[in-house]
């Protein structure tokens, strides 16, 4: 195992791993974005006056937080196909990851919503803002600013959790690593390289998060 060979081989793996990393990135981005809106919706349900809606939200959050992502993905992928309604792995992965992060994001955003003084909502009503306007223009911008560190760490968690979509036939970073390792018979270097890709993505996300946080802190 001499170093120049190793380097040449690693360079050879790069294009495919990069493809996989792009799949991982957009899948995580879709999940985080959908999960954000679904998370707001679930929080609204849990905060509503209707007992039934609140209980439904609680059950949802408890189920998704109390079980592994892998088990959830298997359900989303195999149960529809078992009922004769086969869906592609990518769709099952996007839906599963979105619904998973929605449960976590509803908890994160809920803490942000509760931190907003009631007076602001009353003031918005006094200024004749509709409830929806108050929500999108008064509450949500503040909620995002307040919960940004937690949202960034949830993003990082979703990038890492997305590695298990390799099991339901999505060619993400992990899956590309498995394919390369079964072709090259060099699992140690391939998997280490794939891990480096994950490390780069999560490190960049946390750096970006810290940068934005500093900017938000300066503005307020």
């Amino acid at each position, binding site marked *: 195992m001499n170093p120049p060979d190793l380097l040449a081989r690693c360079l050879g793996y790069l294009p495919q791993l990069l493809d996989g990393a792009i799949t991982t990135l957009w899948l995580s981005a879709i999940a985080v974005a959908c999960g954000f809106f679904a998370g707001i919706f679930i929080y609204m349900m849990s905060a509503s006056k209707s007992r039934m809606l609140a209980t439904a939200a609680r059950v949802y959050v408890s189920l998704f937080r*109390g079980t592994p992502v892998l088990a959830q993905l298997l359900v989303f992928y195999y149960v529809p196909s078992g009922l004769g309604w086969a869906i592609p792995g990518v769709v099952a992965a996007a839906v599963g990851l979105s619904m998973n992060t929605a449960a976590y994001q509803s908890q994160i955003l809920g803490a942000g919503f509760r931190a907003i003084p009631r007076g602001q909502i009353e003031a918005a009503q006094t200024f004749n803002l509709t409830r929806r306007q108050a929500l999108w223009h008064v509450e949500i911008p503040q909620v995002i600013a307040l919960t940004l560190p937690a949202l960034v760490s949830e993003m990082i968690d979703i990038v890492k959790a997305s590695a298990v979509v390799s099991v339901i036939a999505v060619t993400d970073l992990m899956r590309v690593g498995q394919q390369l390792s079964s072709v090259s018979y060099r699992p140690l270097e391939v998997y280490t390289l794939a891990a480096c890709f994950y490390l780069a993505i999560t490190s960049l996300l946390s750096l970006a998060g810290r940068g934005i946080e500093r900017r938000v802190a300066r503005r307020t």
Partner: protein
Amino acid sequence: MNSFLSLIPRFADAILVTLEVSLLAAFIGALGGFVLNALRLRFPRWLAAPYRVYVWLVRGTPYLSQLVIVYFGLPVIGITMTAVQATIVSLAFYSAAYFAEIFRAGWASIPRGHGEAARAFGISRWAAFRSIEMPQAIAFAIPLLANQTILVIKESAVASIITVPELTMTASDIVSSTYTYIAPYAMLIVCYWLLTQCIALAAQWAQVLIAPSRKTS
């Protein structure tokens, strides 16, 4: 309903495998994290940098990628393990980083004055660590420790990929041999949910037990 009942024996076995693997890994991980944090506190100058790198590596990569490096990668350099061993080793290595950070937060929650007071009274460093800092830090950390144990149980599902016969692997086996989908997967979700709820309840109970001693101290 009948199909559910017939699944119970196999799932009961599988729950035991999941519990055995994840609780053993969590225990080793917690012990490792505790020692790591203690060493970091004792030798801040030497260990601060390596500790940060370790935490960065473990928390920056998915557990699955750590597992495949241990199970498929390490044999290349002559370290071969069974699937169960690889799972326990990698899961302990993974969770130790998180546990160490939890203990770090526990120690950070102790007011500085306590250490200074102990030194003023001539209490040795070890005695202060053991009887002043540790009880407070652990009482602070109980909910976080329980949460981390739940995370370890959930991560252990990934071991099904390297054919450890735990819950997820068992459900997939039943699905592929019987072509029924709903019952095994529903059972799978129920089993994990019950496991994690039990840990959460146990943690609440442990906190109630510890709370009185916390007030008097």
